């Protein structure tokens, strides 16, 4: 199956949970990754229970924050 990740086609052999997809993509710090699946914002607490299917559009980014303290 083919999904789109950050604008690029990615081939998968089976449906994956977002947690599995993050591991597949070798993303560090999964707790700080936010995903958008078919325009729906998915927070880290939903990564294990949300699956991607053929044709899905996935975007991811890292939490960006900090401070002067």
């Amino acid at each position, binding site marked *: 199956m083919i999904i789109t990740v950050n604008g690029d086609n990615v081939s998968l052999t089976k449906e994956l949970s977002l947690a599995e997809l993050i591991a597949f993509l070798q993303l560090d710090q999964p707790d700080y990754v*936010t995903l958008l699946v078919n325009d729906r914002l998915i927070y880290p607490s939903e990564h294990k229970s949300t699956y991607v299917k053929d044709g899905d559009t996935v975007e991811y980014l890292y*939490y960006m*924050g*900090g*401070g*002067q303290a």
Partner: protein
Amino acid sequence: MAIYLTQYDYDAIIEHAKQEAPLEACGLLGGEYRDSDAIVRRVYFLKNTDRSAEHFSMDPREQFGAVRNMREHGWKLLGNFHSHPATPARPSEEDKRLAFDGTLRYLILSLKAAQPVLKSFRIKDGEATEEELQII
């Protein structure tokens, strides 16, 4: 290695940060790479969802929107910026701890002195290295 920012965008970042002060201001930088240099083509001003004078968090939906706009223009996410209203332009421990992408530039604007100071850093594995920032 350097990052290039137009005078217009430089002034806009300072103006935005002054308007947001005493809260921290933040945003993203989209543009192109030329060899090892980064050329900023657009600055995206994002909400600081923390609404804090000492912390910032970007709104994920605004982040996705900005990155999508960059992709439409054929640009890359080059980095981000945030302001330090009352401290120097150097990464705090929190800035370093929360810098997850070693490929990005992290610009910090200090409003502590009368003359604002903007610096660019690469942060990898908790270590910050200043890099050249050219205003063009």
